């Protein structure tokens, strides 16, 4: 298998997860990277993506694993055929099946546009109940692992899994509380995949 890190930005952040999967499959085909297929009637390519990123959120740290025996320069072949904004940054060959979606424990983001505030104020709180678009309330405080101001940007490290909190949702809450308007969200790192050195 090959596991690789790639970007999703420069317009690519607007691709839906399903479309992205289709694009990666087609990129492989154009690049001549033969991906193994399932034995089912509809032969699914064995391509495994990290958890869906909200549409509009850019990323420098998306991950994917593909079942292939490709021996050439994967990065070069992939990048020559990928849509704009989808670019392989690094890759590794691995033994055994890798499904990055299950290994990632947390993600880090930079959110732009929120007025200056003291992150300690949020971190001190024991609960932080947000209401989503469908009117459901949820305590998202356990998902917030780190929250910092880095210059004009707001850095947040959020836990994945059952308590996954969307960075734009938290960003909008903060902008509502402290002022400003979220203008962009960029994912900069995932945690849990360190062993691959990507």
């Amino acid at each position: 298998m090959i596991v690789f890190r790639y970007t999703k930005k420069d317009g690519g952040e607007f691709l839906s997860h399903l479309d992205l999967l289709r694009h990666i499959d087609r990129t492989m085909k154009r690049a001549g990277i033969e991906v193994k297929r399932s034995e089912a009637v509809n032969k699914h390519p064995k391509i495994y993506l990290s958890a869906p990123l909200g549409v509009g959120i850019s990323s420098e740290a998306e991950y994917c694993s593909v079942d292939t025996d490709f021996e050439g320069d994967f990065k070069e072949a992939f990048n020559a055929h990928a849509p704009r904004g989808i670019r392989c940054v690094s890759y590794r060959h691995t033994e055994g099946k890798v499904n990055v979606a299950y290994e990632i424990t947390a993600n880090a983001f930079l959110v732009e546009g929120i007025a200056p505030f003291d992150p300690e104020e949020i971190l001190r709180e024991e609960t932080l109940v947000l209401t989503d678009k469908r009117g459901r309330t949820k305590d998202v405080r356990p998902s917030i692992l780190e929250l910092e101001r880095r210059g004009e940007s707001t850095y947040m490290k959020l836990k994945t899994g059952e308590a996954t909190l969307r960075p734009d949702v938290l960003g909008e809450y903060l902008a509502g509380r402290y002022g400003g308007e979220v203008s962009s969200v960029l994912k900069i790192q995932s945690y849990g995949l360190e062993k691959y050195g990507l």
Partner: protein
Amino acid sequence: MNALLRKCLMESEKPSRYVGGEVNAPVFREGVFSFCMCFPEVYEVGMSNLGTKIVAKSMEDAGFGVDWCFAPWPDFGEKLKENGIPLASLHAKKPLSSFDMVAFSLGFELSYTNVLYMLDLAHIPLLRREREGKGYPVIACGGPCCVNPAPLCDFVDLFFIGDGEEVDAEVGRLYEESPDRETFLQKAAEIRGVFVPKYPKERVRSALVEDLDKAIYPESFMVPNCEAVHDRAVIEVMRGCYRGCRFCQAGFLYRPVRARSVETLTKQAKSIIESTGYDELSMNSLSTGDYPHLRELIRSLKRELPDVDLALPSLRVDSFDAEFAQDSRKSSLTFAPEAGTQRLRDVINKDVTLEEILHAASSAFDLGYSSVKLYFMFGLPTETDEDLLGIADIATKISELYYTKKRKKSLRISISASTFIPKPFTPFQWERQASEEEVKHKLSVLKSSLRMRGVTLSWNDFFTSRLEACLARGDERMGEVIAEAYRQGARFDSWMEHFQPSAWQRAFAACGVDPERYTREWSEEERLPWEFVDIGVSREFFLREKHRAYENRSTGGCLQGCKGCGLQEVCPKGKEL
């Protein structure tokens, strides 16, 4: 990307429609004739269109700056308008108003208001006279609807009529060579296949590509960001149809039939599949089953592209072959008998018999098909209730045939009935369209006779068909109605969720135009609004065919001997004979 545009995108459905960056997208060249290929429909529909790909390719090959634009879905369109952001091209994000030529492809009359919608979003005045001398782009239209340019003459500077492959680039070169706009328009008006409303001609001949095999064809397709309606590779096997069904406009517009060679098609298919990563290839034409080398082509494609699924749309009943069906995973079989009785099928020159339908259905059922789709028209010339009852008769016979053997699944028959629309450049161009009362009656006959187990009936909206007839057969006055309807909010007229009959009704009333003006019967002595366009098929032929229809006589198609439609001189089949 600026923050405002980003915000508009975030608040719109499927923003990837608007960001560009598609694989195989053209790189815009600066400093040369710039051409924006527009399709007045939403991205997923526009991206599926083949004609525009050919036009864009011919412009790119000529060295011009080419970009694309599709109609923003109303949510995004509203946001652009609210924020005063002018509509820009897909990749280079150049405002449409900065191009030398903005060209729309018109394949469907119900997209006319979307041309105005896109011009409006681009901050380009809608009316030709309002743009005069102000440095706006040349607004052009092409595609099959342009055989009747009359209703759009107020808005459009230049029409491409007929095959565009060679004419498009010629017009671009003329633009570059011309000292000013007026010289360009005057000279362009002299080119065969071009109509310039400001410099009208007595007779405008449509352009014709005689050798399709050598004609320009894209080597790669742009791969859409979000799934298109037809998200697959396409080869154009043939242009035109041998059949001559009397209601079918395409069947006459694309005459004479021209085919590509197996070698060329295989080469084109390979190139598109390799550059796109598609796993499905569609073999397009109006009647692919009539392609003379179909078996050879399928063999060649399977040999060269073993992992690619082949799709054969528009297979006719009599060309349906179990061998082709076996490969596809489709569970539904589609037939288009169009009329319920043999008499009426003779009237429309649809040479399909009930026996052929049953024969094809029988082999399909044995292969495991358990679902049949049947397309019919109603409101056809000379039609009686008996013809409509014939539809139920066909459904009954198919059903009986299915249940002669023990089958795993129960049979589903879906019948789709659409109102006949008399179109220009057909033998039925003089016919009237059925009135609302008649349509009501005909539908009630269909509904009551088709109350059968496993049968579903669907039909199209009456007013939509009426409007399509008015737009297809319209004259200059219809242009006023289009402009008014747009002002009243009409756009995306082919989408039921956006179609506003009331906007059109108000527009007809405000302009003092009765739709009956266009849906009535025309006498054979009258000059029809589109008759200054010459598609090569003669008026005499159309009249002869019309008269034969009223005698319940079919004519057959070109494969049963030349019928002398007027194109014998340029017809490859005619030359063979």
